[in-house]
């Protein structure tokens, strides 16, 4: 991803967000990180960015189980926002869920590039972000 692109983390676990930011910093990845505690907050912000004709994030790291709006619902709603593929954003699921149901469901969303189970290895994270 480009250096000027933002990394979007959507996860209700504040400690995880803190650790992700710390990991990125440790890897020398200095892209701006925008984080949200649920899908609804993230969606609101992304809508705003689009309406301001701003730059949407270069990658989204998305949790599944979140209050108010979970990862699946976010994906459905985000499709409505990112119409005509306004920007093709790679999305990765990063979840503690190891339920097969979630793995299988993720395959039905073409915009999801991979399903990562927490804890994510730093090497994996780096390879994704430097891709």
């Amino acid at each position, binding site marked *: 991803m480009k250096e000027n692109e933002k990394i979007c983390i959507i996860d209700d676990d504040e400690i995880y967000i803190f650790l992700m930011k710390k990991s990125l910093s440790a890897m020398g990845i200095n892209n701006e990180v925008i984080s949200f505690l649920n899908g609804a907050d993230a969606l609101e912000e992304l809508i705003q960015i689009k309406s301001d004709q701003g730059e949407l994030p270069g990658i989204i790291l998305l949790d599944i189980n979140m209050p*108010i709006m979970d990862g699946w619902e976010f994906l459905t709603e985000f499709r409505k926002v990112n119409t005509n593929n306004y920007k093709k954003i790679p999305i990765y699921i990063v979840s503690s869920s190891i*339920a097969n149901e979630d793995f299988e469901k993720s395959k039905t969303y073409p915009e999801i590039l991979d399903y990562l189970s927490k804890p994510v290895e730093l090497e994996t994270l780096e390879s994704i972000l430097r891709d």
Partner: protein
Amino acid sequence: MKFLPIHKEYDSDIDPVQTGGDQLLKFAKHFALGLEFPKNSDAAFIQNEKTELFENIFNFLPVPLIITRKSTGTIILISAGVETILQTKKAELIGKNFSEIIENKEVFDQISSQLESHGKIINNEIRIQNIYGESISCLISIETIIANGESLYLNALTNISERKILEVAIQNSEDNLRTVFENTEVGYILFNQFQNIISFNKPASIFAIKEFNKEINVGTNFSTYFPEIMRDYLTNIIAPVLNGETTSFERFILHNSEHHWYYVKFSPVFNKDQLVAGFIMSMENITERKKNEIELNKSLNLVTEQNKRLLNFSYIVSHNLRSHASNMISILNFLEKEKSETEKAGLMIHLKKVSQLLNETLFNLNEVVSIQKNLNTTLEKLNIFEYINQAIAILHKEIAAKKVVVNNNVPLDIDLNYNPAYLESILLNFLSNAIKYASPNRLPIINFTSVKNNNTIELTISDNGMGIDMNKYHDRLFGMYKTFHGNKDAKGIGLFITKNQIDAMGSKIEVISEINVGTSFKITFV
């Protein structure tokens, strides 16, 4: 010499052997009396010729006929038919007294008396013995005839041994069927095509008395046994049966609050032309089987529910513990490499927070486990009205702070057999949620109502609060750590625990909710 035309009483189209009785007698008389000679013949010649000829022909007759003297009962003439029946030669029989070959002498005595008074008997049943001592059933018809001035008896026999054997076999078969019919536990009623009763067995009679307080009577119509309100329904059931179809169903009859289950079957009865001549209604009491089936289904549902909950629980445990564990690993990795004391202190704060969250998660999971473990705790008779008042008292500060109106409209006399801790927890949870999510735009009102049914008690807690978007959240409303209003204090554990407490006791919960209108939770206690 000539044979005169057929005796006027005798109908030649009828086989006398098969028909027996009076027809056989007429034939014998026709034969015996029908022989005539020209009027100018010599009397002695005629007599001799007549006698000889008669005897010769009589001997060969396949029809079993015996001529005996009325005065002595001595057999003087037998036909070949008799030889066939008794499997003996005429020489063995001529000169014997007829009564000697009769097995049931008392019947023969009665016949003789009747003969004395009436001069004729038709088709009386007797048993005679053949040479081997075997009993042969015959019908006997006797008529007095006069020959040479002497009164004789013309005895015509019809062998009915085979018929008798068949009759006995049919009777046995009928008896067997009747035994089965009467001793089965299934009630059977046979109807004709006009739906009138032709026959029924004892269980059917017991069924009618027990369930409808009516006696079954032959000739009465099917519909008369049911209330008028059911007649259209029954007509619809019977219609296809009268068209040759079999129909069956399971029904219960509510009797003194008890369900009496029956398997009812209507089968058409066809005549030899394959047309529906009526139908059989069978009714089998399947109450015990049904009770077992219902219990089995309950157990199956319970096990399925428990499996579902266990699976769900394992996901929750896995997800939540992994979440904390992965954070701990990450923090510890950073701590190992971190040189700055300030950064280390910051990481330690986070580690403490993760530990605290892990502890909370374990506590919550332990709560769920304890619900499952406490399934067999002693149930107590709890008054719902009083328990609601207790919950209101516990939350009185929150109620006052939000100026909530709580109406306890539950009737005073509704008691529930339940786990007291669970009932308290359930009521507190629903009440505190209703207070927490009260609409700021109107006076919050919370209503408790309850209805007692036959086997269940329904408790409804409704509010005019913020409501929940059921289209979005109905699947995860009772999920662990699921919150719906963005309230920072919400942990998403209350409804999860409450649902577990309700499920664990075999009760059910339903929700109706509309955003900005309110929410209604209905618990059905079984």
